[in-house]
């Protein structure tokens, strides 16, 4: 095989790759936000004392997590096609709801990992329920679950490539467009492989160095 790599056609399409990378980052960041919000709500419910919120959380997690992400995205785009939601929104919903189920399990485990004495002590000091969660439980739980959240986010970035099926112009979608245009299959997929690799590695390491994650860690280590 006389395969000569030619990177010039990829370079000529760099605006498409650049745009795809930006959409991938925007979609992943938006979906992370959605997933963490859902995760906090559902995860806290899953760690509740009462049966009803626990059952609700279990139902959400099991039903959402056991359906492929591709079908989640198709559900919003094609299943609810009457709503005419933009493709980006459909991908955002699909990714947030799907990853939210995983985030919920992480948050639930984090909340349950905090010794019950912490909440009891805080209650004895006269803190309200939301104050106990926000000031005592969540900050400590966050430290425990930061690595898991980082790996969830790196999973989410990779999962965002599925948005290409509903024509969201992210990295994988743009790669397909360039490939069909130039037939430089190897070059274009090597390029986006490297970009995903850099992006996911950078993000998953950066998350662990967030001031919040470190500050909490330091405070607890000092105690």
């Amino acid at each position, binding site marked *: 095989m006389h395969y000569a790599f030619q990177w010039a056609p990829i370079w000529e399409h760099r605006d498409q790759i650049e745009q795809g990378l930006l959409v991938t980052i925007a979609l992943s960041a938006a979906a992370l936000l959605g997933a963490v919000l859902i995760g906090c709500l559902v995860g806290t419910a899953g760690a509740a004392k009462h049966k009803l919120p626990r059952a609700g959380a279990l139902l959400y997690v099991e039903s959402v997590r056991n359906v492929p992400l*591709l079908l989640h995205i198709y559900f919003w785009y094609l299943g609810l096609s009457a709503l005419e939601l933009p493709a980006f929104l459909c991908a955002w919903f699909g990714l947030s709801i799907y990853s939210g189920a995983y985030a919920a399990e992480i948050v639930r485990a984090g909340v349950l990992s905090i010794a019950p004495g912490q909440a009891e002590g805080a209650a004895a000091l006269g803190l309200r329920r939301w104050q106990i969660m926000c000031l005592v439980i969540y900050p400590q739980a966050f430290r425990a679950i930061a690595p898991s959240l980082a790996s969830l986010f790196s999973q989410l970035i990779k999962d965002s490539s599925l948005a290409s099926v*509903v024509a969201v112009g992210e990295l994988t*979608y743009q790669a397909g467009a360039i490939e069909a245009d130039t037939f430089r*299959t190897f070059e274009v997929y090597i390029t986006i492989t490297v970009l995903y690799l850099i992006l996911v590695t950078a993000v998953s390491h950066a998350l662990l160095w967030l001031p919040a994650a470190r500050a909490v860690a330091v405070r607890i280590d000092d105690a």
Partner: protein
Amino acid sequence: MNRRSMMAAAALLPALALMPRAALAQCAPDTVAQVKTRGKLLAGVKFDTPPFGFLDDNNNPAGFDLEIMRAVAAHVGVPVEFVKVTSVSRVPLLLSGNIDLVAASMTHTRDREKTIDFSMTYYTGGQSLLVGKDSPIAGVGDLAGKRVVVQQGTTLEKTIARLAPDARVTAFRDYDAAWLALAQGRADVLTGSLTILQGFAKNNGGFKIVGGLLSSEPFGVGLRKGDWAMRDAVNETLQDLWTSGAYAKLYEAWFGGAPTTPIEVWPS
């Protein structure tokens, strides 16, 4: 689709990296000699694009592209083995030597010509519009503000952008996804190769083809760069098919009607 394409790329990259340099160097471009030594022709075809290449009711590969490949194998004097390719895998499989040639309803373009070689045109397709039965759209002039879906990265995409600059065009990664968008009411128009649109219209009521032919799409058989022996074999086969009348029969069988564009025949 997407997951499949990622997997194909992931599977092919290490294969390329691990290929010994020596093997690369001794691989002569004369594929016809190799095919004769091996005793069979490895032809890349699609299994998801009726009527060019698809699985028939008995799950056997069938289609116009496959018949052309059968004729090339007969011309060389060996049996044919069909290898399933996708839009993502066809060029890597061809360049790595896993297939000898590829007939996958590929439009011959100058940009693609920079990466692989093409045979002479074996089929001329044309682009048209598929709309709902009650749609007021009658042609390319009615597309302003309308939602048009098309297959990504194709010449079709560029043509519709040129002919209907005011249309809202969305390009999907494959025909099936674009078709679903139309069928679910997320789009007003699906534009694509007339023969493929006819396939969708035939299998599903409630849609009609309008607007006539918007462009001319020359399909070519894909070959490795510089593989002149195989390109000659394909070109000779195509001309023989035309002069013997076999081409017209194949055309009638797969598309209905007589060929719209003749195969060029070179004098002896």
